[in-house]
């Protein structure tokens, strides 16, 4: 095994300033449908940071696709500036020290992409290598982390930064449909930046995890379970989430976990920390009972969902940040990262502290 595997050095996160309880949103937009109201109130989410418009006189916000795209661009930059600054200052670095930049988003299409915008505005060098991962959904954080970690392993001692930037309020559609209610009650806005560097293992200081391996799994039979649909009557994209998503993800969760662990001769009991995407209450339950992990194992996943909602691709990094802040991780511990999303996809990574 290579001695210069990528290590996670720090994570920084940011959210927009306005936080709304589920009830706040129901009142702001005068949601009347009792099924949708019940969904908001039973969704195991206490609040979410969002960038919401003022409603018109009839309680409905008027945001066309152009407004939404501008919102995505504006808030991506605001949130990324803050998250990146937090991740880098933790290591005494600036954006000029970054040699590889990978940006993830699924909540707005831009050309040029986020990496180009961040280089223009945030002080990255113009010779910074870059990659934009666009439209891969909630699992994309690990799809981006895999090549970023490989780049680090191939370029020991150099700094790579991955930024997951999701402005889910730039996707909102307002109507009375149940599927719209599911989406509008679940997603929140947030950005997470993670700093990686390939270095040989050292024996001093705080526990720092090495990214040991990745294992992917896609479920082509559930290709359409999570998707963007163009809705001409709204004139914008709407996110569709099939009601069977939690169960489909749950029943397949064992496959990549077994694949990942078997490759390293590990059992599930050898994993001390589970860092799982906060997809939703039912998704978390399905994962818990299908891979046999406990409520304690998903405490940060549940907590991130409760406090922020589903933050898309960066959610798992919010959980990772909470795990590290807890101070319970010890050198030698192992962890598994797991993200789920459209495809349908389950991505996993093995960590070793």
């Amino acid at each position, binding site marked *: 095994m290579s001695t210069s595997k990528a290590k996670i050095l720090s994570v920084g996160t940011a959210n927009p300033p306005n936080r709304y309880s589920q009830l706040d949103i129901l009142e702001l937009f005068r949601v009347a449908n009792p099924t949708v109201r019940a969904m908001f109130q*039973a969704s195991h989410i206490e609040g979410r940071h969002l960038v919401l418009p003022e409603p018109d006189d009839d309680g409905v916000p008027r945001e066309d696709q152009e407004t939404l795209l501008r919102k995505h661009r504006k808030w991506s930059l605001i949130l990324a500036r803050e998250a990146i600054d937090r991740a880098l200052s933790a290591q005494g670095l600036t954006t000029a020290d970054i040699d590889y930049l990978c940006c993830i988003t699924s909540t707005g299409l831009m050309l040029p992409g986020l990496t180009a915008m961040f280089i223009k505005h945030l002080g990255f060098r113009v010779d910074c290598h870059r990659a934009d991962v666009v439209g891969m959904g909630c699992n994309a954080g690990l799809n981006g982390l895999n090549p970023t970690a490989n780049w680090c392993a191939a370029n020991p001692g150099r700094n790579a930064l991955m930024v997951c930037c999701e402005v889910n309020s730039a996707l909102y559609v307002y109507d009375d449909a149940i599927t719209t209610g599911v989406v509008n009650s679940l997603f929140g806005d947030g950005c997470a930046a993670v700093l990686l560097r390939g270095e040989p293992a050292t024996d001093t200081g705080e526990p720092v995890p090495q990214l040991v391996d990745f294992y992917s799994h896609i479920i082509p039979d559930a290709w359409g379970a999570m998707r963007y649909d163009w809705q001409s009557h709204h004139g914008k994209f709407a996110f569709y989430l099939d009601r069977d998503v*939690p*169960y489909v993800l*749950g*029943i397949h969760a064992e496959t990549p976990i077994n694949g990942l662990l078997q490759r390293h001769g590990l*059992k599930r*009991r050898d994993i001390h920390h589970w860092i799982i995407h906060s997809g939703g*209450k*039912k998704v978390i*339950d*399905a994962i*818990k*009972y*299908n891979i*046999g992990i406990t*409520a304690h194992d998903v405490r940060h996943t549940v907590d991130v969902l409760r406090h922020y909602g589903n933050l898309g691709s960066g959610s798992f990094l919010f959980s990772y940040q909470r795990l590290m802040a807890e101070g319970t991780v010890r050198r030698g511990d192992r962890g598994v990262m797991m993200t789920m999303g459209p495809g349908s996809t389950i991505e996993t990574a093995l960590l070793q502290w």
Partner: protein
Amino acid sequence: MYTTLSFEESGEIARVTLTNERITMAMVRDLTAVCDHLEDDSACKVVVFQGQGGCFSRGIDFAEFRPDEPMDIHGFNKWEKICVRIERLPKATVALVDGACVGGGAQLALVTDAVIATPEATFQFNEVHLGFLPGMATFRLAKHVGLGRAKRLIMQCPVVTATEAFSLGLVGEVDPDLDSALARLIAAFGPNHTVAVTLARRLLNESFSTDFENGIGNFLAAQHRAIHQTPFLDTIKKHRDE
């Protein structure tokens, strides 16, 4: 291989005989190795825990403590971890109790799925009278016998006879012939449906500490897993064929 217990496995039964009357860290290590084997390599249906020579277990071995050394909580944590692993084994578990089942021994019996006792069996949570706590029996016992009875058992430390333990619900059956009682119990456990057994037990264990809203979410996740396993699919096929 094991120094504090013996392990034998034949067909659907694996048998763990505690050969030490007292629970030591060596026994915790042995039980951990037994659990590794049962989780990874065993096709058995039922795991039986028993003592020998008219004693199930007398509980923790105080010889491992030194009054002049700092007290260490981590050994207690290791004991709790092995209890949880036994409680969650992907097998039905049984305690066969003859004679004294005291302290940690009673805690061990409490994490199994069924207890069979001889009329000579006695149960006691004696820890509080010795100045410490009966582990997570403080969490589990009230679920089995109710809060008032648990307070009596844990705070007054009575020696409970097999008959009384039966009426409290700690023991499922009292029979001088443990082997035939065990054979009946194994038959009663029915087919070896590991996933259904493990999930049903997990939901039951969680039932007292989960609210209904979370409980039903947990149930649906577990049920979805169960109905996609071979045993349930076979049940449907069989029903169709009839």
